[in-house]
Each structure stands twice: as C-alpha cells, then as structure tokens.
C-alpha cells in the first residue's frame, strides 16, 4: 500500500495521526486530504464498481469523484477535505460508490 511517493512537498508541515483502512498514517495537519495521501505514497483511492480497477485523484477540484473515500460512514471526495487528527479514512468497497441516478 505505502510506497515511496513520487510527489514531493515543498515545505514539510507538522504531522498528525490518521488511519487509512485501520492502519496508522501521519499526514500534514490541515492539508488537502487527497494531496496528503498522494505525498504519503497512496495511489489507489478506490476501485470501480464496474470492473474493480483502481482509481486515484484525477481533477483535484471536486468534479470527477475518483478520489472518493469513506469517512464517518459517508462517501466523501478526498480532494475537498482537509486533514485533521484522528480522521478514520476507509477505502470504499467498490459496490458503495454512489451514483447520480439509479
């Protein structure tokens, strides 16, 4: 899951502890969550419901939904959230990715 990241932070910010699928991870406090996960070496944010293939952030502006993760039981766009201590991030089982219409 965690590999050496290919993204670099220009300035290193103080870290806080969060969990990703139950595993501890230290991310910069207050940072954009999607950016922080990329810097931490996380590349797959979810799998697609149709073919179970991996996806990661694509637009970083809240329009593509490829960065969806589950927080407090709700599917949220990681690129529209900020890191705070204690955040429990769960990578969604593919079937729970919401649809606009059914």
């Amino acid at each position, binding site marked *: 899951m965690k590999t050496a990241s290919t993204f670099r932070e*220009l300035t290193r910010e103080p870290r806080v502890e969060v969990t990703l699928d139950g595993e501890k991870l230290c991310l910069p406090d207050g940072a954009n969550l999607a*950016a922080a996960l990329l810097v931490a070496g996380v590349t797959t944010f979810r799998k697609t419901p149709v073919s179970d293939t991996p996806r990661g952030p*694509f637009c970083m*502006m809240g329009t*593509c939904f490829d960065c*969806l993760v589950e927080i407090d039981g709700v599917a949220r766009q990681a690129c529209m959230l900020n890191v705070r201590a204690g955040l429990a991030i769960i990578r969604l089982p593919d079937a729970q990715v*919401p649809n606009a*219409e059914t």
Partner: protein
Amino acid sequence: MQKPDLVIVGAGPAGMAAANQAAELGLKVCILDEQSNPGGQIYRDVDRVAPIRGDALGADYTYGTRLTDKLHHANIVHMSGATVWAIEKGFCVSYTQNGRGAQIIADHILLATGALERPMPIPGWTLPGVMTAGAGQILLKQSGVVAQNAVLVGSGPLLYLIACQMLRAGSAPKALIETQTGADTRAALRHLPRALQGWPYLVKGLKMLAAIRRAGVPRYQGTASVSITGTDHVEAVHFMHKGRTKSISCDTVFMHHGVVPNTQAARSLGIAHHWHNAQQAFVPKLDEWGHSDFAGVFIAGDSAGIGGAKTAEAYGKLTALKIAEMTGRLTVGERDRKASPIQRSLSHELAARPFLDTAYPPFNAALTPSDNTLICRCEEVTAGDIRRYTKLGCTGPNQAKAFGRAGMGPCQGRYCGLTVTTLIAKETGQSPDTTGYYRIRPPLKPVTLGEIAAMDITTDESPQ
C-alpha cells in the same frame, strides 16, 4: 441573513469582480464557493499561498489578491466551503456548508462556476497517476506538492504554464508530449496580426517556451497515437513522433487540451445552450450582459464561454452593472458610461484568442476516441459502446443513458458529456446542437440525508 439582492455561485475572478462591482453600487451580495478560500481555479487559495509560494507561481497568480481583497466589503457576505447543489425558480439556492444544508433566496443569480478541463479520453487515462494539468496546478498552488517524475501531454498555453511552475518549484517535467501539429501553427498565422494587439500574452508565451528550452525539457510536437500504460498505476506514455514510436516511463501524467465551460448549474435550470465550434463545447445563450433566457439568471466568466481570467473579471463587472441598472441603482446611461471602458478592455483581452484556439486545437483522437477507449470514467462505457448504441437507433445523450448508463455515475457526465455528444453527432451526421446534451437534474453534487435533515430553511425575510 438579510435577503440579498444578488446571489453569486463561484468566487473566481468573474464572481469576485461582480460581487465587488455590485456591492459598490449598493446591492447586497451573497457569494458562495465550495472552496474554503476565495480565488477560483486560477487564483486558488491565493491569500494563504501568495506569501509562501508566490515566487514559483508567478505574478499572474499573486495578482489574485487584488480581487480577494475587494471581497471585504460591508455589502458582501462570502460563504466559503459552501457547495451549491440546487437552484430553483424563485430563486432558492440550496447548499451545504459544514455538513449542514441551508437555503438562500434572491431575485438575481449569477452563475460564475468557471471551467472544467476538457476530457481527454485516450487509452489508459483512467489509471491512477494520470491527472489533469489543472489538478497538477492545484496540487502545487494549494498544497505545495509537486510531481517528480511527470510527463505533460496535450496542447495549449496552460501546459507551458504548469511546466514553468514545476521548473520554478524545482521539479522539471520529464517531457512535453504535444499534440498540436505544424499545420495548426501555419493555420494560426493568419490570426497573428489581430493577436499582436494582445501582445503581452504572446510575450508571456514566448518567455515560457524559452524557460522550458533552457531547462532542457524535451518537447515532442505533432505527436499521434498517444496512450498510457501501467498495471495498477501509470508506468509509461507511448506515442508516434515523426513516424516513429516512442515510449517515456513516468509516475505521473498531467494531461490538458483546453478547458470547457462548466455548465452543470445552468443546465439544471434548463437554460438554452448552443454549440461553439471554435471551442468544441456547448456555451449558454446569453445577451451582451450575460443575461440568460431564464429571466434573472446571469452567467459570467469561463462558465459562459472560455475567455480566461481577465475576461472573466470584465464580464463579471458588466453583469453587475446590468443588475444594478435593473434594480434601479443605475440609469441606463450611467450603466453604459461605466461599461464602455470595460468593453474596450475586453477587445484587447480577446485579441489573442483566435490565434491560440487555432494554434492549440483539442487533440482530435481524444474528441472521437478509438472504440476500446473508456469515455465515461464512472460507468466505464467505451467509445465503441456509444457507436454501437447509435447503430441501434440511439440519437442523443439522454437515450445513451438508457442504452448503457453513460453519464449516470457520480460525476453526472461532467467528463463524458461532450464526448458522447460528439461521438453520436459524428455517427448520425446530425449537428451537435440537434444531438443535444444530458439533461442535468439537481442535486448537482451528492447530498446526504443528514445534511438535508440538518437543513436550516431561511424564510423569505422581505421587508414589510
């Protein structure tokens, strides 16, 4: 909150300029943006970021603080982190802020929701590690995060801008794989005389190209058959250049071949749109003041048609003048007197547009992708699927939904809509206007039941 005269959706250059102009003329303005700080895409988070990374991002970025400063006005309420998910007749604007739903009522609405990256469906574009160039910029602007082993793919000045911003941040891109051709450059030359009126843009462009050359970043122009491969993550980009196949390994791909208007909110109100051939996108039908065919709804900035940040600012101001006149704050004469210097500045701003649009057209192979290429990222529908539906009698995007769910995923067609229209139009021989676009229904962004339950319904506080 007191009922505002004007509700603006989007605090980019268009929305911010409109808010200030309207407030100066005595209108009460409420401006909502889902971002936690004002600035829009170009000036994203500029108040916080300009002091720390202003140098790498450049003067065209830090200029944004001049606009954000002007939001501090007694007549302006700026609601940050407020995602608008429905606009209904009346006008009632529903939004979510801090996990709570709320509504606000106003007689005039300005949609200044900006642009989206033009979808660039090429093989492999859904792999993790493939992002839009705009996403690369957002990472750098907002988060100070830069990709270290990245390749830039596509065409247009924004590609050169991010290359230069990456250079200044100390992470040169590995290569620029550009899709515009020599023929495009030659075709653009006839627009050069007009473009010279907007010469500062051309000078900036030449400076960016010089910086890229000095840094030794290879540029491959006129490339074709571009594809991306990798198993769980991008590993390489492949392309044809001067008759030869080339591959470049990388960890990140930033792709860009123009931006297109974000029309979701306007579409949800049923506002008429038409196909803009030069921009290869739908734009809303508006009068010279940005007024739509839905009385009381105005649109300005890139969501009204792509013109860039300065144009967005100018149109935002013009819209505010018109609304001030409609609400009795200005006479028609006063409105026109204030508008005329802005209108003159617009012709300079737009001078370089035809040159740039012709020199950097969208990548043709991504407008009508090969059969196996995924075009709907959410529901994983391919270009071949759409062609097949058309052969079975599908004549428009809404029918395509019934055939195979394209456009029915969480992005609501934002990244497949234009491709679906183009593919169907090509197959049927109909125009894009006849082919049409997805019907967009609220919610524009997913809302949870909890957010609706926590809704604080503002009643109309009109004065007795």
